[in-house]
């Protein structure tokens, strides 16, 4: 079996592939690098796959915490792993929009799931999951409720600030002047969609587009992203685990290649 682990800033994700390159298990723990999250996700996924640590032939680590994960055979960036993961799950996708806890990226996929080009957000939380977390807190709801709240919006309220800190004050002032929570929630979603749209244009996006990362669990965000782009955008299956799945596919390929080389020798 082959294992990919994606250790992000706010969560740890593990995917395991079997010998036929099929997905045997995935697990997501909402604790990121520097916590017990990676170990817990690893144990959960092994249990779900009915596997022991010794059954794993190769491990690829990705995400910001990849460097500190000592058990990996190799580290590969989350950019390459997301491209690989998406192309494994959805053959026709050419552009990936990944919105995680602390960064957002748009990746153009080439042949065999290789990265053609990508752009990432600047050193700033604008257009990331953190932005939505802050908005949820100000709006007094859980992050999971934000999508439904925005869907009930009847008026468009633009949130013009791109900076998370400024957007927070803007939202507070909107609420104070009587705007509905639903409309402000939708405005926050649209602010992200516009921000990501700029990144898509820079990278030169092509259909089909898929969304990955925790923010892809937000149905309304995926829908608004599609409206902004004027193109259908689909949420990838297991959106949070796509990077880990890509890492597991790399683990499979690296291990196979090593075996081929050994056979040739």
């Amino acid at each position, binding site marked *: 079996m082959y294992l990919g682990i994606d250790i992000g800033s706010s969560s740890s994700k593990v995917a395991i592939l079997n010998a036929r390159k099929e997905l045997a298990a995935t697990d997501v723990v909402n604790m990121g690098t520097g916590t017990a999250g990676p170990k817990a996700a690893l144990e959960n996924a092994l249990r779900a796959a009915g596997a022991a640590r010794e059954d794993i032939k190769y491990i690829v680590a990705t995400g910001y915490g990849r460097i500190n994960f000592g058990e990996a055979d190799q580290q590969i960036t989350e*950019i390459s792993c997301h491209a690989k993961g998406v192309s494994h799950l959805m053959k026709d996708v050419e552009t990936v929009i990944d919105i995680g806890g602390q960064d957002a990226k748009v990746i153009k996929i080439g042949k065999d799931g290789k*990265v053609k080009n990508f752009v990432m957000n600047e050193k700033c939380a604008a257009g990331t999951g953190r932005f939505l977390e802050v908005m949820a807190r100000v709006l007094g709801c859980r992050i999971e409720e934000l999508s439904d709240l925005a869907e009930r919006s009847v008026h468009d309220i633009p949130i013009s600030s791109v900076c998370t800190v400024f957007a927070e004050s803007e939202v507070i002032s909107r609420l104070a002047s009587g705007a509905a929570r639903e409309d402000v929630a939708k405005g926050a979603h649209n602010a992200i969609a516009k921000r990501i749209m700029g990144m898509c244009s*820079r990278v030169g996006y092509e259909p089909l587009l898929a969304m990955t990362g925790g923010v892809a669990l937000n149905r309304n965000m995926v829908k608004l992203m599609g409206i902004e782009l004027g193109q259908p955008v689909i949420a990838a299956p297991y959106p949070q685990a796509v990077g880990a799945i890509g890492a597991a596919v790399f683990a499979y390929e690296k291990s196979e290649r090593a075996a081929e080389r050994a056979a040739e020798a």
Partner: protein
Amino acid sequence: MENKITSKQMLADLLDSHYRSALEAKAAGKIVAWATSICPQELLETLDIDVVYPENHAAAIGARKHASEFIEQAEGTGYSSDICSYARVNLGYADIRHSEAGDIPMPDLIFCCSNICNTVIKWYENLAKTLKIPLILFDMPFNHTFEIPEHSVAYMRGQIDHAICKLEEITKKRFDYDKFGEVMELSNQTCEWWKKATDLAKAEPSPLNGFDMFNYMAIIVCMRGKKEGREVFRLWHDELKEKADLGIGPWKDREEKYRVMWDGIACWPHLSVTYKTLKKYGINMVTSTYPESWNILYEKNDRNGMAAAYSANYANRNLDYGTGNVIKLVRDFRLDGIIYHSNRSCKLMDFRQYEVQRRIEAATGVPSVIFDGDQTDPRVFSEAQYETRIQALLEMMENNKAERQEQCKNSKRA
């Protein structure tokens, strides 16, 4: 047996004596000027005026990790954190007047040429006003056309002539035009050797590690019109040539696997980590836009040619010129990738960076990454984000290399 001095030793000695002699000149009551990095220093050299370059001093303070103190001072005085950090370091230094990283004498004259950016105009004006000293400003409007328009050259020529009169007044000396010719000739020779040396990085593997070029840059800034400046680049050239002829690469303990260009100024406070991250993957920065920036060439005694050369500085040229130059670098230096430093300080470079990147990628297909940083403000850089972007670039370069090798194998089979 005679011990031959290396260019690296010479570089260190020269920089040391450059700053020491400026401090001594000041102590002896001589006029000291503060000047921008690509200004007509020929005029100052002709009149034997000691010059220090705040940009170079700020970079040195940044590289030695002392920038914060001066940045905080400038911001405390009211300068915005959005303005160039060289400006903030220098304006802070003008108040504090001492740094563990090394001192410069306070100026008696400000000499500013806006062919490198617009920030220098207000930065240097404020210095002159605060210190109550004369300012000689060369106003060099941006060249929006590909060629340098004649009116731009005439405007600069007029300013050079005017500056000569002003300098005669300030120094109470007659301007020696014969000596001026000699300084012009020498300055051109220094530029030629700088270009010839940095061009040797075209060899594969490159004998030059580009981070060394960042160090040698101090001399092209500070000693362009001096014999010692020319000699250090001639020696550096000879050393690199010898390495290139022997096929010796940039590092003793690592092979050059990939060749990249660095767009923008170095990230001085994080120089070591930005360098080591590249080296660990065998990525050698073989060139940047800097060799071209000091390619200031004109005929001896041709003041119109001199005016055109200063107006034509790389940073003062339009987008078509800038992209054409980078495309040429990609081809001439056989680059595998490009690293763009999105430098919070440098609005001029960042403003067009996305478009430059898009055009270069379309024209050459070479992969690239942009990372956030700053030339001297240590707060605007994340090591983990830099590492991820560099590793992603490496993965794209690896894929391209594997594809090229595959194609090569297939065509051999065919």
